[in-house]
């Protein structure tokens, strides 16, 4: 799995697609595969009960399970529902692109994704260890010690290089105009500064938590970096 990449990729797409995409569904699509499932992968303690998938890897990425959320077909189906059900081709296409980015990015880990579901083959580059089954803190420590963390860094640096997409001028000329129905509606409740703050929030979140988790893992807890392929090898990486 990836952490900050899903926050940051939409800004990179935005830079290249400009008025052709709507940012909000692009971002929602980028989060969509994990939106309702990640809590069950890590497990939560609720009203005295521990809720966690008995096989987190199978649940998250497999079939049977909700692994189909990481397939290209899932993006197409939800995109079509948005297009035909809510009458917005722009939102449908933008959602699909964001979801595809997530599904393809997650092929980077050792479990990979069923990109061509219903074919249940897992496409995996295996560059970094999938450690979701170990719980969220060990997963964080492992992710921010391996190549996944470097992949996130690429998106942070590309985002900083593309800093103009974060400016007020860009928001006014491109983001607002491309999706004026949504932003115009929201503008009635929060001012322009509020809109721009919301637009920048995912970038802020991605960059800050990359820095914070890196400090937590390597300065506070001294987990060792292992930037070898499939690492870090100090954690038991899951495979399909």
């Amino acid at each position, binding site marked *: 799995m990836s952490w900050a990449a899903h*926050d940051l990729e939409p800004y990179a797409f935005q830079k290249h697609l400009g008025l052709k995409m709507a940012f909000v569904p692009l971002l929602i699509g980028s*989060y969509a595969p994990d939106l309702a499932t990640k809590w069950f992968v890590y497990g939560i303690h609720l009203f005295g009960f521990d809720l966690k998938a008995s096989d987190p890897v199978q649940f998250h990425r497999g079939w049977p399970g909700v692994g189909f959320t990481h397939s290209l077909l899932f993006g197409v189906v939800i995109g079509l529902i948005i297009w035909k059900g809510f009458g917005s081709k722009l939102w449908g296409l933008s959602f699909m692109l964001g979801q595809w980015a997530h599904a393809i990015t997650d092929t980077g880990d050792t479990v990979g994704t069923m990109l061509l579901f219903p074919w249940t083959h897992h496409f995996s580059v295996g560059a970094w260890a999938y450690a979701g089954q170990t719980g*969220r*803190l060990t997963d*964080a420590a492992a992710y921010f010690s391996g190549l996944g963390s470097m992949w996130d860094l690429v998106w942070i640096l590309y985002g900083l290089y593309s800093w103009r997409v974060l*400016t*007020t001028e860009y928001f006014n000329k491109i983001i607002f105009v491309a999706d004026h129905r949504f932003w115009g509606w929201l503008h009635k409740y929060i001012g322009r*500064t*509020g809109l721009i*703050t*919301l637009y*920048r*929030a*995912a970038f*802020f*979140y991605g*960059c*800050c*938590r990359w*820095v*914070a*988790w890196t*400090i*937590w893992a390597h300065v*506070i807890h001294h987990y060792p970096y292992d930037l070898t392929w499939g690492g870090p090898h100090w954690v038991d990486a899951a495979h399909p």
Partner: protein
Amino acid sequence: MIRSGRLQTLVIYAIAAVVYVAIGVAFTDFMFSLVVAIVYLLVAVWLVPEGIRRLVRLARNS
């Protein structure tokens, strides 16, 4: 050269980022939610600076 408006925005975001990172490192639960991050950012870079601006204006006028 960075325009003064942009520089002011950059400084506000930088301060908000440093505080977010400090809270996140101390309390990791804070970093697991995008919703928390959005609310935090709205408060830190919009509501708080706006409140300070109004207080300064009030102080000048009184």
